[in-house]
């Protein structure tokens, strides 16, 4: 039943090829995404039911041999973490397609690539075979390059190339790490194995773990803006079209976080413990340094991109702390940040469409002319600064509580520094909000003043979908923690 998650996008993609014109294309793309969203909910509910009955670690497993000589399988299965990530992907995909409703340029190709990207993400989150995992990771990389290079703005070629090269570099490192794991396994027949569950059971030797963990972790880390490999994030996001930014920050960065998590908790826990202080060090730097660097940004997309570096630091911090609570917090932060940052990029995109500028200095008092978009911006901002009632707070607090369980003074110091970022975040969010949304009305870039209309129906639904997700986690976090905890 999990394969449906991959088959649905493939059907959508084929249907897209048969369509012509923006009107047909977008309806098909949206239809596919909505069906996928409904199916994700179906998976959520069946997972809840099945989990009570079935005690195994991964449910709904399907296992087919793909390439026998190397013992590569198409092997999928899910646990609560995967379900959370699938839901995230489905939410962001629907919102992303709705936001791009009026993309006139090469619309067929645009929606084709978006759907392909989501397919890669779904496949990645359900893979239990390392090779399948890697395959889907790559599926999710290539479309990004094209999305930025063709539909982007500003220095798009530079950014697209930078992003593609860094992510490819990350993939290469991941591949080395995974291959290293593979050659250190012993399947029953004497062949090696890519099966994640088997590898976890076999517990490959600590020496091999220590050797290959850095490759895999740094490789995945590049995807989730691990310091100092985060520099593709600001350039990539700012050049990308709105939907691509939403996908990049909302889904793509989560591929890295999810990969890091599986490496650290499932495949190579010994090495993760061994290197935990390095992970924590880099994560803490990312959190606090990313936050301060955000303060100096003048472009709204750069602000959100840098703040993503800071927020994704919480994911890595949670993973590095290796306590159950902290890891739960890391997963919550992935989901929360995915929704929140997608919402933020959507709001910025809507503003940009109307005002043709993203410079904070050129905008002001937009609440007056576009109250809906301004409210969306405020909600995204408040979620980012960790307001209770929205998802960011519960995720961050869980990471803090989990980190504090480590009773070592250095770890405590890292936690305190991470906590301190909530103040810095408040500063940069409120500075942007106070200028762009509040204050006297000012729009420098807009060529025609009457363009300053409020959100259209598609934009309202897109924002609404993401806000529902954010609030559902923010006011009732217990369902998410129940889902994540085994």
């Amino acid at each position, binding site marked *: 039943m999990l394969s449906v998650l991959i088959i649905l996008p493939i059907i959508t993609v084929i249907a897209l090829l048969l369509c012509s014109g923006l009107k047909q294309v977008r309806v098909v793309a949206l239809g596919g995404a909505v069906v996928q969203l409904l199916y994700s909910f179906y998976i959520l509910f069946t997972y809840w039911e099945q989990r009570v009955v079935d005690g195994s670690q991964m449910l709904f497993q399907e296992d087919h041999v793909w390439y026998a000589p190397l013992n590569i399988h198409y092997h999928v299965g899910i646990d609560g973490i995967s379900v959370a990530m699938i839901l995230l992907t489905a939410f962001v995909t629907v919102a992303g397609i709705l936001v791009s409703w009026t993309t006139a340029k090469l619309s067929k190709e645009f929606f084709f690539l978006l759907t392909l990207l989501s397919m890669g993400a779904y496949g990645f989150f359900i893979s239990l075979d390392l090779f399948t995992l890697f395959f889907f990771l790559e599926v999710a990389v290539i479309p990004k390059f094209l999305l930025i290079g063709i539909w982007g703005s500003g220095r798009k070629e530079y950014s697209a190339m*930078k992003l593609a090269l860094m992510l490819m570099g990350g993939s290469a490192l991941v591949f080395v790490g995974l291959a290293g794991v593979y050659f250190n396994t012993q399947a029953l027949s004497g062949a090696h194995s890519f099966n994640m569950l088997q590898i976890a059971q076999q517990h490959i030797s600590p020496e091999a773990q220590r050797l290959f963990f850095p490759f895999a972790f740094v490789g995945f880390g590049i995807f989730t803006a691990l310091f100092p490999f985060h*520099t593709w994030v600001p350039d990539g996001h700012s050049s990308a079209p709105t939907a691509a930014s939403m996908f990049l920050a909302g889904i793509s960065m989560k591929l890295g976080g999810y990969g890091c998590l599986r490496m650290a908790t499932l495949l190579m826990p010994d090495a993760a413990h061994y290197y935990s202080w390095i992970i924590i060090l880099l994560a803490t730097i990312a959190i606090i340094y990313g936050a301060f*660097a955000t*303060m*100096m940004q003048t472009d709204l997309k750069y602000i959100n991109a840098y703040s993503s570096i800071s927020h994704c630091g919480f994911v890595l911090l949670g993973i590095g702390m290796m306590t159950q609570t902290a890891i739960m917090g890391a997963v919550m932060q992935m989901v929360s940040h995915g929704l929140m940052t997608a919402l933020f990029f959507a709001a910025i995109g809507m503003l940009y469409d109307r005002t043709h500028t993203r410079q904070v200095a050129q905008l002001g008092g937009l609440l007056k002319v576009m109250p809906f978009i301004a409210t969306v911006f405020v909600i995204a901002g408040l979620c980012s600064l960790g307001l209770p009632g929205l998802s960011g707070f519960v995720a961050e607090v869980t990471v803090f509580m989990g980190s504090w369980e480590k009773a070592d003074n250095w770890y405590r110091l890292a936690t305190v520094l991470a*906590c301190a970022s909530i*103040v810095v975040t408040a500063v940069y969010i409120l500075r942007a909000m*106070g200028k762009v949304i*509040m204050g006297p009305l000012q729009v420098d870039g807009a060529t025609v003043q009457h363009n300053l209309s409020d959100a259209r129906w598609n934009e309202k639904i897109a924002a609404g979908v993401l806000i529902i997700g954010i609030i559902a986690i923010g006011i009732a976090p*217990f369902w998410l923690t129940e889902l994540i905890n085994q």
Partner: protein
Amino acid sequence: MEYSNYIALIPLLPLAGFVLLGLFGKKTFAKSAGIVGTLFLFISTILAFYTAYQYFFVNGKVNGVYQPVTALQYTWLQFSLGMSIDMGALLDPASVMMLVVVTFVSLMVHVFSLGYMKGEERFATYYAFLGLFTFSMLGLVLSTNIFQIYIFWELVGVSSFLLIGFYYDRPAAVAAAKKAFIVTRFADLGFLIGILILAFYSGTLDFGTMIQRITGTNSPVLAQMTGYGVVGIPVLSWALTLVFIGGAGKSAMFPLHIWLPDAMEGPTPVSALIHAATMVVAGVYLVARLYPIYLIDVSVLKLITWVGAISAFLAAIIACTQTDIKRVLAYSTISQIGYMLFALGVPAYGEAVNTGYTASLFHLFTHAFFKSLLFLGAGAVIHFIHTNEMGNMGGLRKFMPITHATFLIACLAIAGIPPLAGFFSKEEILITAWQSNKLIYYIALITSGITAFYMFRLYFSIFYNKTSTHSDHHGEGNLNMKLPLLVLAAAAIVVGFIPFTHFVAANGKGEEITISASFSIAPIAMALAGISLAFVLYFNENDQPQKLATAIGGLYRAIRQKFYFDELYLFITKKIIFNGIAKPAAWFDKNIVDGFMNKLGWATTGISERIKALQSGSIQSYTLYFFGGIIALAAVFIYLWT
């Protein structure tokens, strides 16, 4: 009726108002938003009073003590075994008292705003925000869990932000809103870390269990927390100090007070509700909530005492020099909260454990009434005369008789003239201070004189002095505005007679604090002296105040500039944090980290450019490479062979 049947409605009704007005306010409730919001709150208020009646009079004392009741408790976020954020409702004398205060004052503000905010473009949004604030404040008051209080703590913070910045197109309002949020956020960081420490050692987030585990006889938790120190200070002191920093930020104590005067940019009824009667006393409430733990740590209690006393004194001095009437009231609020805090802390010096707690909360209680009355009165004045500046006012008693009368009652109450409410609570605080620490007592005594002075400076400047040039049109305002003034004035007269010690006490039993006539002579004399001085200087228009100000020159300027605290903060944020940390971080990221990555990319391109030259496509050079390669290989082989 069981509490659990209705207690949740008290906070949830205002929340429902927020959701309803927030989503549909603009279209459906454009005109009726005020009525809708007020109705929701009215039901809440009735339920809150009913709860108080049940708690104090129906269920009453068991074994001579008002027992704390956990009326509701739901696990909201489970971290690990035994460690969870629970949402619930804890009823004890302090929280029930706060329920009454918050709903009552909020209701008065809702009613007042019907007139005051009439015709505002964002009328519905205003009531939505008021609902959000009231919900958050009630949730804060009812907290059973230290994280629950933190959550609602943040929510009152954001409501305050939204309401200060209500006139969002005024840069001053936006700046004030940001300042309020960021300063309190900074303080909340302390609170958060304090929670983490307390939770780690006590293994729980529940107030009751936490207090029990730390204060129990021969508590191993306590032994751990006092035995282990960081930088020579026991972790217990760290935790309590950090939590107190959070409280001091919210309660605008020195040196974290700078946001409160600026917060007066919000609509005046909001200042009455949030920045006078309810939210700003959250810090006092927080310390009171954890009071049994604070009592263990005398050093932190002393810190609280001095922070409170210094705030009370300095804010009172600054209040004497301000000319914006709302700012005078803001500094007065800081000063009065200072009283509440040092009353909580001063038992560290003596035996008056119970009286400190009771006196502090009593003052919180009475202060809520007369201070919100003062703000609403100021609101009525501003509504009438369209300015905040004292210099543009004068002689208003003729035009606004009801405002004048009620304002006078409030001024007398805060000055501590018997038999008004402020007299009783302030007297209890002074007695506690006298029994514990004489120095604190004298500071408090002098401050009460200054209080009387600046309040009557305000009163005479508004209602007497020269006759304001502005004297026209729409009278004093409608019944919506007058009624809350009258009700609050009545409260300011009678609430002092409530036998508060009987109801609210640290150990639940309550000890009578006797106010003796001989003790009261000094405070009343101080108050009268302050009033007389204000009378001489401000009753009639004269140049005495100006002369006085020039006579003390530099000192006056320093006070008027609020001891340059704002400038100090500006220096720290702009020069140190922006230019010293953020700018270098951004520069480093752009030039070093990203620069390195780009260099890496260019280097790769450069190398490939060089290699590319090899594949020139000309046969001659290939032949050359070919033979060159053969010769080189031959050389290697020959070398290896021999």
